[in-house]
């Protein structure tokens, strides 16, 4: 898989590139700003972007991610950030959630999980950092349908937002896959998502979760 890295911090840029190469990724470019990233966009299969980059060090990475996905709809992007901001997550997801990831930077330390996430994002999954999920959880008001979910259902929804499938969710929570399906059915019902479009519902559930 051809990956482009955009990260302004030299140490992290080199480290990421070293890490991905050693894990079998083909790092075609490691750049330090959004423009250089967009220039090599067409040659890449996926991108790892830092949110804050020059010149203003605010959310250049997010802008670049949206621009990339405007040019190449569905282009897989994994956004890394020093801190999570659910508003950023909402912004990212507002124009389609497939092939999107939003993670805290330190997740790169768990090399196996990180590369796994990158592969899943490249495969079209939506992955949100658990931190985003817990931030959202703590902010929900009583009128929100999310607040009607049981703690276990929230956990399941959180793991869905992390882009895991039923089997992996079952493994994480140490329950059977059937139990997971039952929880997910309840979640869909409580969030009033139709039973028709099965494939999208997971994404829709996550979106319901992320949009306040």
């Amino acid at each position: 898989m051809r990956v482009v890295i955009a990260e302004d911090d030299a140490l992290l840029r080199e480290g990421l590139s070293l890490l991905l190469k050693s894990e079998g990724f083909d790092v075609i470019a490691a750049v330090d700003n959004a423009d250089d990233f967009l220039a090599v966009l067409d040659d890449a299969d996926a991108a790892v972007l830092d949110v804050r980059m020059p010149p203003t060090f605010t959310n250049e990475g997010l802008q670049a991610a949206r621009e990339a996905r405007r040019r190449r709809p569905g282009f897989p992007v994994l956004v890394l950030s020093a801190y999570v901001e659910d508003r950023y997550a909402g912004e990212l997801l507002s124009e389609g959630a497939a092939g999107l990831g939003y993670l805290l930077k330190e997740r790169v330390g768990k090399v196996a999980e990180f590369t796994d996430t990158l592969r899943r994002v490249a495969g079209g999954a939506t992955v949100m950092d658990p931190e985003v999920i817990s931030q959202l959880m703590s902010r929900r008001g009583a009128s929100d349908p999310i607040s009607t979910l049981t703690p276990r259902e929230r956990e399941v929804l959180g793991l869905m937002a992390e882009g895991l499938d039923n089997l992996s969710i079952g493994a994480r929570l140490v329950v059977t896959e059937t139990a997971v399906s039952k929880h997910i059915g309840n979640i869909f019902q409580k969030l009033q998502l139709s039973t028709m479009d099965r494939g999208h519902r997971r994404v829709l559930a996550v979106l319901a979760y992320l949009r306040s």
Partner: protein
Amino acid sequence: MVRTTVFLMVLAAPSKVDLAIPTAWALLRQTEWMITTRLRRWWRALAYLALELLASIISMGLFMVGAVLTPLLLFSGGWLIAPRAVAVLRWWTTKARLRVARYSGVPLAAEYIPIPKNPSFEERLRLVFSRTTGRDSLWLVAHGLLVPIITLLCIGLPLSALNSLLIPSYWYLLPPDQPVSSLYPVTSWDGAAWMVLVGVGYAAVSWWLIPAAAMGLTWIQARILALPSKSSLVERVTALTASRAAALDAHAAELRRIERDLHDGAQNRLVGVVMMLGLAERTLEKNPEDALPHVRRAQQAATEALAGLRTAVHDIHPPILDELGLEGALSALTGRSAIPCLLTLTELHRVPAALESASYFIIAEALTNANKYSAATEVTVAVSRGQGSSGSTDKLLISVEDNGRGGAFERPGGGLAGIRRRTAAFEGVVEFDSPAGGPTTVRVELPCGW
């Protein structure tokens, strides 16, 4: 005065003999004292009135220039010079306050809202139509138009008295068709004799009138020039609201800077540590002998993270300020400068902690700028406590000057902008001068009186 004393001594000489005399002696001493002090007071009042006369001529000139120029300039570029005109007016009224205070012995405080460096149109309007400007203008008109008349009259009186007393000695020298004519034409010895009486009358009136006029003048000027009126309080509240907003902005900007320092500095290094350790872990699993470089890089990144944290913490509040106080901290700061730095400190007394840290950072920023851009061979830093350029309140005065190449300019987010931000938070004034070819001077005044 000397003559009076001699005269009294002569009178007092037999007093040792007669018992009734000591009371008379005491009475005489008392009278002598009264006369000399009255005389001294009278003389002082006369000098004051003469000084006011001279000053009022300048006031009249300023008033006329203002009266002619204001209508013209309102329609041309008047707004451009308005702040300068207000500055001149403030300077002149401040001088008047000092004169009044020196004569009456009662200090006259004046609180002015600082004139912004590059005022917007709205700020110019507010400046021109402010209560203080109105008050100063009223004073200028009164001073320029009334004071010359009053003072000329008062100073004229003793001169007339002198003239009248001297008339008997010279009236006959004048041609009969052009006699000396003060109150009435003096054409005979009789008339001249009466003139002596008139002179005494003049002298008596001036003896009483001159101190009274001086008192009256100081009183009325003090009434016009003094603070605080209710509306100037309103003005002050407006200014304070603005400075509070600036303080909050400065505070928010400060927090943003700290946040960025931590996120992009220390935190990124720590992410690096985690990443390198992750890499090392993977390498250990696959081929352990290649893991060492990753561990070394992790260690390197951790060391950098620590250094970053240290800098960030130092920039929040330099611990040296607590340890050594402002003076000591500044000595340490200037001692670290790559360009030789001369520090002049006068007695600073106690400075509020917030001001200490603001002054420390202002000087640090200015020195960093000088070290980075000026190519100077010497920097002088001076910190003192005193009165600023505008008004009379207690100020902390900072100046940083280098002999470098000059041409420095203010960039958003740059060192100078930082200095301005920190100064604005304290209602201070920044003056920045850096002509091409140098020298570069940064002057800051921070009010201390709170």
